[in-house]
């Protein structure tokens, strides 16, 4: 036991002595969270809106008021019908709302059934245009148009805040980064430095060597988990509606899984650089591309949907969304939990079988 304790101490010293890496590891979650939460977002802010108003009426005035009061829009004033397109082209406005002269006239009093308002959007950035159009529709769907439009309610994330979407993704990414990559690099470093040879020629069982390596990274991950959850709650204002214990529990399992992955990589790689490349190819890319963090899984070709089933991050992120955003109880993520548990067991078994106490 004395050997084990000093092993853990040694690993902690390694981490503490490498100040730069430690700082990166501790700050990265915060930086990523703030980046994704505020700077990089699929939300669209500050949409400049101009309006074409051929005939002023009470309804038009109300609609314009709603637009200028909305935090996502900046009302730029009215333009003439002829200038509508040129002000989009010049960048004066991102969108132009064209009201019909009979806007606001009750349907039964109207002579034709054509829509009474038109939205023109600068779609050179199609993402912005699509999202902005949704906002604008929502705003215009005041009393007068309510009857003509389906009522849509965005549950759980009514403002479609992208931060909500990214937080689980960032968590899926960060734990892979810290646990899998750092653990594998740390084990492979011992191989590269030749210290592994000395460790093996000692009475310490390989299992202990590995366990001792995992503990400090597990602790580091716990700190990160706390940082992320606190930032999500207080800086990004996420509701954290579901059980916090469930979120922590699911995350712990995912951390262990990532540690097992790191161990597995270290059994294949001989050089730190190789370990890094394998980690990046095998884990980072799939996590970003196939986990549903950025690209919805439902939109992928079937083959990729199938592949994504084998990516732990997919299940973790799914589970987190249910817990953190939908606010479901832990029982609802049992499926994700069990899948992750099975994956962890499989990877652990595989890497322990491969990790051998000889050099070949």
């Amino acid at each position, binding site marked *: 036991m*004395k*050997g084990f*304790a*000093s*092993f853990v101490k*040694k690993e902690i*010293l*390694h981490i503490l*002595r*490498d100040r730069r890496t430690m700082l990166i590891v501790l700050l990265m979650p915060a930086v990523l969270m703030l980046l994704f939460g505020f700077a990089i977002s699929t939300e669209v802010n500050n949409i400049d809106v101009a309006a074409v108003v051929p005939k002023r009426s009470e309804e038009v005035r109300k609609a314009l008021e709603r637009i200028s009061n909305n935090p996502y829009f900046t009302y730029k004033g009215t333009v003439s019908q002829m200038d509508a397109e040129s002000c989009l082209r010049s960048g004066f406005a991102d969108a132009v709302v064209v009201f019909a002269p009979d806007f606001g006239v009750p349907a039964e009093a109207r002579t034709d059934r054509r829509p009474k308002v038109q939205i023109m959007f600068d779609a050179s950035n199609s993402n912005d245009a699509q999202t902005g159009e949704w906002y604008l529709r929502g705003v215009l769907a005041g009393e007068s148009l309510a009857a003509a439009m389906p009522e849509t309610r965005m549950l759980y994330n009514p403002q479609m805040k992208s931060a909500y979407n990214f937080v689980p993704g960032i968590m899926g990414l960060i734990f892979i980064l810290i646990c899998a990559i750092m653990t594998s690099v740390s084990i492979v470093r011992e191989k590269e*430095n*030749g*210290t592994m*040879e*000395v*460790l*093996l*020629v*000692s*009475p*310490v069982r390989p299992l202990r060597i590995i366990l001792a390596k995992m503990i400090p990274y597990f602790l580091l991950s716990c700190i990160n988990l706390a940082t992320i959850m606190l930032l999500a709650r207080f800086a990004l204002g996420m509701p954290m509606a579901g059980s916090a214990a469930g979120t922590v529990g699911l995350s712990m399992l995912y951390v262990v899984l990532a540690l097992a992955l790191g161990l597995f990589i270290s059994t294949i790689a001989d050089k730190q650089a190789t370990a890094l490349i394998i980690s990046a190819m095998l884990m980072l890319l799939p996590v970003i591309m196939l986990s549903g963090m950025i690209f919805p899984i439902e939109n992928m070709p079937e083959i990729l949907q199938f592949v994504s089933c084998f990516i732990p991050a997919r299940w973790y992120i799914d589970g987190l969304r249910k817990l953190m955003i939908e606010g479901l109880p832990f029982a609802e993520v049992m499926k994700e939990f069990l899948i992750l548990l099975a994956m962890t067991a499989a990877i652990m078994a595989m890497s322990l079988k491969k990790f051998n106490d*000889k*050099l*070949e």
Partner: protein
Amino acid sequence: MEERNAIEVRELTKRYGGVTALDRVSFEVGCGEIFGLIGPDGAGKTSLFRILTTLLAPDGGSASVNGLDSVADYRQIRRQVGYMPGRFSLYADLSVEENLSFFAALFGTGIRENYDLVAPIYSQIEPFRKRRAGKLSGGMKQKLALCCALIHRPSVLFLDEPTTGVDALSRGEFWDMLDGLRRCGISILVSTPYMDEAGRCDRIALINEGRILGIDTPQGLVDGFDEGVYELSGDDMSGLLARVRAERGISGCYPFGAVHHVVAAEGFDAVAFVARIAAEGFSGVSMQCIGAGIEDVFIKKMGR
């Protein structure tokens, strides 16, 4: 109880793919003996160490340490031996003291319990015990690595090229330390590419391309050299080399540092030979009879 050998190696063979790293190697190391493995890089020394320290499994033959089989009883062997691999395996980011106490704890012991064994060596680096191992000089790293390999009182010590990359003065000190350890009853298997260190061992094995060329005491090997060795120098060294090699009655001529070594059978008349090649136009030629060294033995055996 019968005195048993610390290390016994029988017909040991190791292959990597098509390359044979060790070819039916056999030798034994007695208790309390310093046994040297002398050979160039790639001779198979490291493979041999790794088999004996149970890190590699042999493809043929057997090896035992303290009577324990290197394959079947590898866990027990690991408790009883100390191993210092070719590169000093220390943690560069840990201090001298942290390194030593970590390796002690690895074997379930502490620095204090075994201080007496490492004291003669450790006392030299103790003033720097707070310094990171990565910041030590080559000689100090080597001493620390030796301390780390010794801290659990092994009965057999494996030192793979411990003096490579260390200055000449530290090398000398290092061999003095090994003498001290032998007096404590520790058996030592040590490898080196430096022929001049062979004389510090009790017995040596010359090894090249996976084969043992000869095993004896350093003196025994030199005494077994049955030809004369001459040191030859002159103004045109490369011309001399070609000229001497063409001479009949000379069994070998090779560059040896700044001079050439000429090996010739008994009865070779060096004075007459020098006079003859001087007449052929070679200037500044001098030739002296010297005794054979380990390297001459090695080169001769290698040529066979």
